[in-house]
């Protein structure tokens, strides 16, 4: 099972757990719907694009409405803490929520009690709380952007709004130094995919590959295009790819979907997501063996 957890921008949506699918332009789970837009919606949609293309089981999600007050977030943390052992996910991808260091620590402790440890992926505020709680090395993949990379490199910061100026005031070419600092401070997971004008794929502190083509600058302005990368990574890992290979293919696929959509800063992320099937048809076999030897588990 691939388990994805995150909040959705609907105050009235209760904690909901189940297999997710599309209902028109919306995502549907347990009788509830939420839009395919920046945040957990974009992330889940990208993961669904992969599972549909490779004919894998759809993701199971743990979602709850939260507009920033934290109640839905805490319900998600508690649900995972109580149930991760019995759910036994192979991939656990954490996304938008209110960062809470104590709950993140408890969640990591609960994961350690699983009979088989899931592959742990974090982005957005779940990555913030993992780093702030000192739990980053327990994760397998983070997908920060350049600013968030500076946050990971700042040993004192608990949120990207409070990082040291000298770390923030850098450009993407300084990413290798920030990566080095983050690993030295034990504030990084096994694999980093640093998103930016150049995407860096790093394993255990060593930069394995950079991806910079096709170059589609407008993607940076479009809310949700970082979330889609995380969804792609999670689903490709679930399909059986090695962590770093999943990160490389995700970076390439996201850029290519951007190119196919020919976006402007006014483009919606759903228009990028709609391009994934065409991108996979044209390039997935070239980039990876996964299209031939489907690595997903049989359930």
């Amino acid at each position: 099972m691939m388990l994805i957890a995150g909040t959705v921008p609907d105050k009235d949506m209760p904690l909901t757990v189940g297999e997710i699918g599309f209902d028109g332009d919306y995502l549907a789970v347990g009788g509830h719907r939420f839009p395919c837009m920046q945040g957990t919606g974009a992330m889940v949609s990208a993961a669904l694009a992969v599972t549909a293309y490779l004919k894998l089981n759809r993701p199971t999600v743990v979602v709850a409405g939260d507009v920033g007050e934290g109640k839905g977030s805490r319900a998600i943390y508690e649900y995972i803490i109580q149930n991760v052992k019995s759910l036994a996910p192979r991939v656990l991808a954490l996304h938008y929520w209110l960062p809470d260091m104590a709950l993140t620590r408890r969640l990591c402790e609960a994961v350690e009690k699983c009979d088989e440890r899931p592959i742990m992926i974090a982005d957005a505020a779940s990555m913030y709380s993992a780093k702030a709680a000192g739990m980053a090395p327990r994760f397998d993949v983070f997908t920060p952007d350049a600013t968030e990379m500076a946050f990971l490199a700042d040993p004192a910061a608990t949120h990207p709004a409070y990082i040291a100026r000298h770390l923030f005031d850098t450009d993407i070419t300084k990413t290798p130094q920030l990566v080095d600092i983050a690993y030295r401070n034990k504030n990084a997971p096994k694999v980093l995919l640093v998103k930016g004008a150049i995407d860096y794929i790093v394993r255990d502190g060593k930069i394995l590959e950079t991806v910079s083509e096709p170059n589609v600058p407008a993607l940076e302005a479009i809310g949700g295009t970082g979330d889609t990368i995380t969804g792609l990574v999670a689903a490709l890992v679930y399909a059986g790819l090695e962590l770093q290979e999943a990160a490389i293919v995700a970076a390439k696929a996201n850029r290519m979907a951007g190119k196919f959509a020919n976006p402007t800063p006014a483009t919606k992320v759903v228009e990028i997501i709609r391009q994934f099937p065409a991108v996979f048809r044209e390039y997935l076999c070239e980039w990876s063996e996964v299209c031939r030897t489907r690595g997903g588990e049989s359930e």
Partner: protein
Amino acid sequence: MAFLRRREKAAFEGDGLVLFADVQAALKAERVLKRAGHAISLVAPPPRLRKGCDLAVAINLVEQPGIERLFEEKDVYYVAIVPLNEECSELLDIVQVTDFGNWVMVKVGNMKLSFDKGSGVIVNTSGGGCPDIPVMHAEMIGKKLDEAPKPKEIGFTLCSLMLHRALEECLRLWQGSERQ
């Protein structure tokens, strides 16, 4: 023995402190925050952060904007909200502007806001990872910069505060270009 077993209290790890001038204000803040559902604890501030009384409230720093708004609504007087870690004392205020031809993207901290140069309409927001950010995304896109809801007024987290600063910078740029 069961009747002696105490329910283990969930630990709270705050990374921010609210400082007060007197103990009464600190106790009132504690009541107000607990009633609103915030995870907090009363603590003694470290000597370097003492600005008034010896009682402070430890908070989850990411909730700073929502807490400030709540204090204003409930007349809670405080001296300052500060990060607990002395090495990160100031919010990031570095602004980066990218010109996309018909559109401009302004980045403050981890948040980005893009608008149409001609109409001043917000076309996208991106970045961040807190739960109020998709709410802002849905509420702000399609509205003019000077008519859009203010993230500081409807958001709860530091991500929304960064987005608010991006909105202010966009407004400054847009209104400046209109005057020219």
